């Protein structure tokens, strides 16, 4: 097919409308279809469908009106039919590049490209969809525009599907199986599915689950009819649970393979690129100086397998946590501690995690940490003891447990600051490390609750770019007041540059 070039303007792939339509249908029509099936069929639903069709038509025309032009040092994107906008995006401003191609994309030999700049809620340009060769050429051009960097090896080979750089990490299927066993994605997906069905079924899920409940009742009846002893019943129940658990883990493994199959992390000059996926290929790249906080996760299962995970917040563009969006997020979905240390050293020239100058919290931090859970278990024991008598007092076991957990937590939780980095690690069984370069701090905060004031403690919290509001950040609690003040002063000075 000859490229559609009018003057020096380029259009999207002729089948772009199909992909835009699919996105529209998925975003707009899918909830409507669910409503139609599960709702009570009212007139406004049909009105909404008409609206959805009109919207889809509009996006169709819109995708035909999309043009882009590659200038000497900028990308010009023209969008719209009735309401035209022309955006000039200097190459230097494009910092994150995300590309995604699912099975349909690959059938047509196309890919979706998203270019993000430093700020704003929306990407600078979403090219849905480009021919693979066009996308590769554009990506190579964007990389070559960076004057500080020598062109990456293999830059001349524009037909390569993923321009290769210095490989930092590649995950084998065996590692992905481990990842699936460690992650609990299967459980999350199943729980999400249940929640969705509950949401859409007007009968509160009763209708939907009626057959399942009936089946369970019949099965229970059969089991009772067997007149099995209590031991057999308990063993059978345990076996059933183990089977369900195993099924969920298998699902997790399948999901890990789907999302991360062939995962590779590469360094291309001053950029970092990562991606993989079995059905949908997602590949994201970002300039290394755009990386913000680095997160290392080490759950109990991670430690059993001798593994960790490493991910990063990347400044700019849309905050999307979907693994399939193509935005750079995972640096290593799974890796050995040595590999994680190696990656930290090669990407941000950080010392190994264990070599950071870790400092403990206040010596009484564990008591503060234990207080509320212990109080909760005491009150629970009172309440349960009142209602159920002596067996209710078993809740008192929660008190030493809370103390043990708090001691364990305070034993691991530490912060570290060296010339370039601020790091915080926390947890007991499940551990989390957060590392950020000092010149990437945005706001520094010192906090004191009434309890802190009484105990002579304070907490330090920092804010950074692109942080996940629900995820782990750096919030160091229970520091001796003088130490917290000193740390606050140093961090403030470093953040001020």
């Amino acid at each position, binding site marked *: 097919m000859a490229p559609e070039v009018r003057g020096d303007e380029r259009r999207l792939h002729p089948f772009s409308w199909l992909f835009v339509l699919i996105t529209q249908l998925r975003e707009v029509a899918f909830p409507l279809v669910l409503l139609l099936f599960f709702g009570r069929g009212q007139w406004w639903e049909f009105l909404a469908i008409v609206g959805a069709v009109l919207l889809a038509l509009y996006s169709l025309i819109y995708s035909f009106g999309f043009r882009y032009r590659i200038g000497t040092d900028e990308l010009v994107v023209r969008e719209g039919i009735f309401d035209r906008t022309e955006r000039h995006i200097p190459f230097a401003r494009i910092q994150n590049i995300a590309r995604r191609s699912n099975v349909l994309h690959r059938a047509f030999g196309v890919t979706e490209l998203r270019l993000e700049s430093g700020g704003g809620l929306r990407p600078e340009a979403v090219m849905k969809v480009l021919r693979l060769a066009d996308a590769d050429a554009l990506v190579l051009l964007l990389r070559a525009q960076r004057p500080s960097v020598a062109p990456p090896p293999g830059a001349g080979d524009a037909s390569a599907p993923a321009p290769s750089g210095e490989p930092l990490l590649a995950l084998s299927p065996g590692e992905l199986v481990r990842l699936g066993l460690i992650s609990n994605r299967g459980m999350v997906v199943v729980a999400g599915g249940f929640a969705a069905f509950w949401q859409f079924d007007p009968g509160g899920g009763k209708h939907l689950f009626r057959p399942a409940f009936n089946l369970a009742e019949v099965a229970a009846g059969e089991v009772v009819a067997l007149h099995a002893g209590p031991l057999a019943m308990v063993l059978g129940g345990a076996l059933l649970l183990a089977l369900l658990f195993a099924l969920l883990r298998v699902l997790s493994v399948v999901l890990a393979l789907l999302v991360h199959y062939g995962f590779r992390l590469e360094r291309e000059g001053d950029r970092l690129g990562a991606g993989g996926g079995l059905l949908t290929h997602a590949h994201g790249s970002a300039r290394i100086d755009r990386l913000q906080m680095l997160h290392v996760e080490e759950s109990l299962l991670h430690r059993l397998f001798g593994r960790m995970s490493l991910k990063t917040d990347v400044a700019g563009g849309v905050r999307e946590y979907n693994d399939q969006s193509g935005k750079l997020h995972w640096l290593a979905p799974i890796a050995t501690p040595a590999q994680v240390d190696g990656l930290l050293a090669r990407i941000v020239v950080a010392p190994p995690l264990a070599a950071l100058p870790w400092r403990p919290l206040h010596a009484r931090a564990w008591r503060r940490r234990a207080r509320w859970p212990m109080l909760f278990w005491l009150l629970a024991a009172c309440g349960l003891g009142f209602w159920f008598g002596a067996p209710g007092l078993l809740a008192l076991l929660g008190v030493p447990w809370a103390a043990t957990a708090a001691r364990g937590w305070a034993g691991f939780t530490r912060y570290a600051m060296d010339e370039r980095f601020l790091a915080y690690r926390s947890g007991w069984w499940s551990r989390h490390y957060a590392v950020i370069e000092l010149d990437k701090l945005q*706001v520094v905060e010192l906090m004191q609750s009434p309890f802190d004031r009484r105990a002579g403690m304070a907490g330090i919290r920092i*804010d950074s*770019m692109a*942080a996940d509001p629900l995820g782990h950040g750096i919030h160091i609690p229970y520091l001796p007041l003088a130490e917290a003040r000193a740390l606050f002063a140093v961090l403030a000075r470093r953040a001020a540059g």
Partner: protein
Amino acid sequence: MTESNANDLSTPRIGLLPLHPRMRTVWTLAYASLYALLLTLPLVPLAVAFDLLPLPLAFLLPVVLGCLLGAGYARRYAALYSATSLADGVLIRSGVWWRGELFVPRARIQHTEIQQGPLDRRWGMASVSIHTAGTRLESIKLPGLPRPVAESLRDVLLDREAHADGA
């Protein structure tokens, strides 16, 4: 943090930012009505249900008590609140029970905004919103500044070298 600690960070450029006298009035009104509401909502039904007090008194008592408590809280809040403009940023202290000290480096400020409501305009009062590239503290508001102070703060904060994008 004491003043000497604040000086450790950097030398003050325009120093402690004065609070417009009307801001204390605003806080007093706000906290008095909040406390009055918080006390009235549970106490009135209780007093009525158990026939503890005649109805007018059952209303009056929590309202008066709430106003007094709120006014006291506002006094304390105003006494503990301070915003200081330093050479390299802005330091804000606030809170009565939960106290916080917040430092926004000047190099991290993306843009600032001066806001004035109708009453602010009448009183010559303004608030300055400081926007950073952060996430949770993406926007930080300094309320109750006299308008000229707000303008000079904005000028001081904008008087900086062109920073790329704060990353």
